[in-house]
């Protein structure tokens, strides 16, 4: 991992601003809660350094950290970054944003796949690391986090590293329980906790603007048997509280309504009143 270097902060913030400008609006129903932009700059630098030279799978990426990392590297604002980034997300608006952004900025290392985490992981299963910022599992004791981690581990074939972003709050009890559950799950899955970076990120979360998240970094135990098979997740006990209490997943994909003027104001938001002709 390269040492952190001084970066041009103005250039970095403006680059992240380009990504944010192109991002779809979040759907709270699916726990799409966006990280604040300043924290996205710092997080992108951390991810770029951590996954330098590696093939990285994003298991869901509403924040568009994948785009940020690829873009900062391509623009030379960071001189390190992953060799390949694949974003797997069930929201076609997110996937299309990745595709359009990669195309417009010639980010050849960045691609996306429309994928619902409850379905068999489509592969390839030879990524070197994975990243996920899943639904945080307040109402399901971390089960939703475990589902995303399971897919991340499968993406690496059981041998690699993972960075998981989950709630971390000194005041509340549930994030501590979830952190414990998630760490136990990682250990049961043949990974160990390499590092924790506490209380790093804040969010556009109107019901708890002070809630922070941490980075948990996992690494596989040497000699893990390779994972080559992935299966759908159908166990109702794992899913019944997926998006909150008594709120199991019902939607396979969020589909994008195609239009011509992406990134521009929707025409149904306004009408034009013309100047009177003189």
């Amino acid at each position, binding site marked *: 991992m390269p040492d952190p270097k001084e970066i041009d902060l103005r250039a970095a913030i403006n680059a992240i601003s380009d990504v944010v400008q192109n991002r779809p609006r979040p759907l*709270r*129903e699916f726990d799409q809660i966006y990280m604040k932009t300043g924290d996205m700059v710092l997080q992108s630098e951390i991810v770029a350094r951590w996954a330098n030279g590696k093939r990285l799978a994003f298991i869901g990426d509403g924040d568009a950290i994948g785009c940020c990392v690829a873009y900062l590297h391509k623009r030379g604002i960071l001189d390190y970054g992953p060799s390949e980034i694949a974003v797997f997300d069930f929201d076609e608006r997110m996937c299309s944003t990745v595709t359009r952004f990669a195309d417009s900025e010639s980010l050849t290392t960045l691609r996306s796949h429309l994928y619902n985490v409850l379905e068999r992981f489509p592969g390839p299963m030879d990524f070197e690391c994975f990243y996920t910022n899943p639904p*945080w599992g*307040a*109402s399901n004791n971390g089960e939703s986090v475990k589902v995303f981690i399971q897919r991340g581990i499968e993406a690496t074939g059981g041998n690699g590293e993972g960075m998981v972003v989950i*709630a971390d709050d000194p*005041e*509340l*009890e*549930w994030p501590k329980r979830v952190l414990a559950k998630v760490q136990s799950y990682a250990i049961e899955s043949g990974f160990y906790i390499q590092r924790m970076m506490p209380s790093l990120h804040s969010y556009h*979360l*109107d*019901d*708890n*603007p002070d*809630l922070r998240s941490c980075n948990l970094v996992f690494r596989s135990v040497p000699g893990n048997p390779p994972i080559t098979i992935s299966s759908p997740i159908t166990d109702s006990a794992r899913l019944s509280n997926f*998006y*909150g*209490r*008594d*709120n199991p997943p*019902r*939607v396979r994909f969020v589909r994008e309504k195609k239009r011509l003027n992406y990134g521009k104001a929707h025409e149904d938001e306004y009408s034009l009143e013309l100047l009177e002709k003189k």
Partner: protein
Amino acid sequence: MPEIIKPGQGLLYMKVGTHAKEPLEEIIARKTREIEQNGVGYWGYGGGTCHPQTMVQPFAKDYEKHGGVIYLCMQEMESTHFAEPIRADEWSTDGIEWSDFPEVIEVRGSRYALVIQNLRQTEMELVLDNTKVALGNSMGARGNKYIRGRVDKACLEVMGSEVQNPEKVVRIGLVADIVAPYAVHVRNRQN
């Protein structure tokens, strides 16, 4: 302690006032008529703290399983809510299947609505220090710490132990029963 504010009770606390340019007294009169004519009324609201699906519905269903009901407890406040008084045409419990509102129902300038009965004026005190957030990302946070700034509503549970020298005591002037389907999404008709 008032009867409905007892240990273990679920409350949806909300600050209310002028909404979508309509004074509170007029809203109360209109909602009372809606309940008389339609059986239930729809109390419009917005914000992200009491999302119908992820917060209010599971909260209310939990109490219903044990034969209980959650109450909407409203604190009157001075407000200037300038949202346009646009009437919602449709409602949905899940954001997928939508139904038309009956003509008598008018939810204005809101994204969501609580389904209510038995709307009545009251006078009681709620000690927010004796409550905690019942579910969601702030589950377990004390009501007096949670209700601040832009956070003006919450799904709360009354706790068993009473805090000495509480810091936030609010006056509840309006109460309603929240009834199935508890909370819904509302929208204008889609063409």
